[in-house]
């Protein structure tokens, strides 16, 4: 019994450290200045705060623009993934329609083709449409990547809400749309928010499509992927910081939202 516990805790600590240590170093190094990056042995804590690497990072041409693009693309992806995904999820959860099961599978099929295979035909099509090298090309692809998750997660979510709650609202004078906004959405809000953040992360992290479909209008990931191999170590570290930390931050928020689901907080 004791041995088992020690084993579990040991493994737990090992895995946690293997994930957390690199992130810890990343944070420590990115606020410690250039000298610390090249110093040996490496430091384990922040001796004196030095923001110069961040300053330099933002002064590099194209970084602010790429970051702005990333935020914009991710935000638009969220808008479309929720705006299109929520009604589709609701339809799947509450209505029986012809071809419903096929539709459910078809949604997953969109994830069956690797972006690498789709990249060339998409490039051609986007050039024809005149949206190649615009954020819209990236938004479309990112929405396509995020939508299946958005639809399937939310449809399970809506399904788990008792039908009677909405029906009670209908009988108390609500239209179906009002009932959705007054009952279903507020009840599911934490999870819908989590879904939105998830879509944001998918877009923020996606690099392949973004790199292929844009040349000048790059998102941060696409921009960094083309720069990082030719950049000095301190630049790589700051770049990594901006790729990793926002994602972690948002996942942290999602976690908070998920735990604040009705009732769970009482436990």
């Amino acid at each position: 019994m004791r041995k088992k516990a020690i084993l579990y805790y040991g493994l737990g600590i090992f895995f946690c450290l293997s994930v957390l240590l690199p992130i810890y170093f990343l944070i420590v190094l990115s606020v410690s200045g250039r000298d610390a990056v090249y110093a040996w042995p490496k430091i384990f804590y922040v001796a004196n705060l030095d923001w110069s690497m961040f300053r330099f990072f933002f002064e590099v041409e194209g970084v602010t623009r790429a970051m702005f693009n990333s935020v914009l693309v991710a935000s638009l992806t969220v808008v479309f993934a929720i705006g299109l995904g929520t009604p589709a999820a609701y339809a799947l959860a509450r209505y029986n329609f012809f071809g419903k099961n096929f539709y459910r599978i078809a949604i997953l099929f969109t994830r069956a083709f690797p972006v690498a295979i789709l990249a060339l035909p998409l490039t051609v099509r986007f050039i024809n449409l005149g949206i190649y090298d615009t954020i819209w090309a990236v938004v479309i692809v990112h929405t396509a990547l995020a939508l299946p998750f958005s639809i399937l997660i939310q449809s399970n979510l809506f399904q788990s809400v008792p039908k009677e709650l909405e029906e009670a609202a209908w009988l108390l004078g609500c239209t179906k749309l009002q009932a959705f906004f007054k009952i279903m959405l507020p009840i599911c809000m934490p999870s819908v928010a989590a879904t939105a953040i998830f879509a944001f992360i998918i877009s923020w992290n996606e690099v392949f499509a973004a790199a292929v479909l844009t040349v000048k209008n790059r998102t941060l990931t696409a921009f960094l992927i083309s720069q990082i191999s030719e950049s000095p170590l301190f630049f790589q570290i700051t770049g990594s910081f901006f790729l990793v930390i926002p994602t972690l931050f948002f996942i942290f928020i999602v976690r908070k939202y998920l735990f604040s689901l009705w009732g769970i907080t009482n436990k």
Partner: protein
Amino acid sequence: MATIHIEDVSKNFGTFHALKNIFLSAEDKEFTALLGPSGSGKTTLLRTVAGLEQASSGRISIGAMRVDNLAPKDRHLAMVFQNYAVFPHMTVADNISFGLKTKGALKEYIAEHTQRTAALLHIEDVLHKYPNKLSGGQRQRVSVARALAVQPQVLLMDEPLSNLDALLRLEMRSELKALLKKSETTTLYVTHDQIEAMSMADKIAVMNNGEIMQYGPPEEIYFKPKHEFVARFIGSPPMNLFTVQTLKTVNKKTFAVINNDIAFVIEASLKTKIQENFDACGVLVGIRPEQLSFKGSASHAKTFADASTIQSEVLTIEQLGSNTLLVLKSNEILFRVMEKYGIKIDLNDRVTFGYQPNQLSWFGKDSGMHIEA
């Protein structure tokens, strides 16, 4: 004036017939219980009236208005769901006032009326709590308050007390009854608990397999079951039913013979009808356990000259507080008798019971239909 008229309503789920040609007419302010075993279509009927299910055929009217093509919100009725369906993301106060708000009532009125409705259901102390902080009984009260707050002309309730524990159920039953009387709504009340139906309803519709087997006042349902199913379903313990083996006439009286010890005398007015049914497909005779009365030990073998008595042996004796339930055995036939506490009787005694011939119920064996004079 909110009468409810259900005419020839059927509901199919695919090939499954959940409701079959339902007729029901509830008068204004009347309390109707839909009573039946689980799966008999009670909820489906209620939901069809509410507009949550679309009837496959038939007409439903509330007052003078035909409603079967209206959306739920336009039918002006309120419903209490079996699982309460209290909105989890709203306080009790917001739950109760929800209907008034969507209907655009004035703010002052909403506040005052919410308070009043909450007081009526004794939940004024929890108005600002969220439902997950409430007990099952309190949640139940919130769902009733939410329905009553809109002062509906028609109130639909789906087994509102079935999730409460026994004591709470008793308390809530009498409270609800008084409340509904005061609120003057026409109520359709689904239950599988016959005592609830008996004690609360003006009229009971007994349902089975999507059909209404009998529709009438509680006494009628209890004392004059129109169908074998109703006889078996109502009453605890339910009616004793015996299969008649032969009909035999002795001294100008006709008896329905069950076995050597048990025979029931047939009233003159029913003689021909029972004979016809017996010849066609057989006959069942029924009598309620409390309608059989203990006449003492059997001192001699039964003869047909003793009209209105039957004999048998005592198999088990159960003391139920003020009553004693006897299970009796006569050859292979078992039946039950309910007696007042304190009768002198022992296991395996051979005893005689009396009955009144006009309390017997007769049913066709195949059709299950009551045989009337």
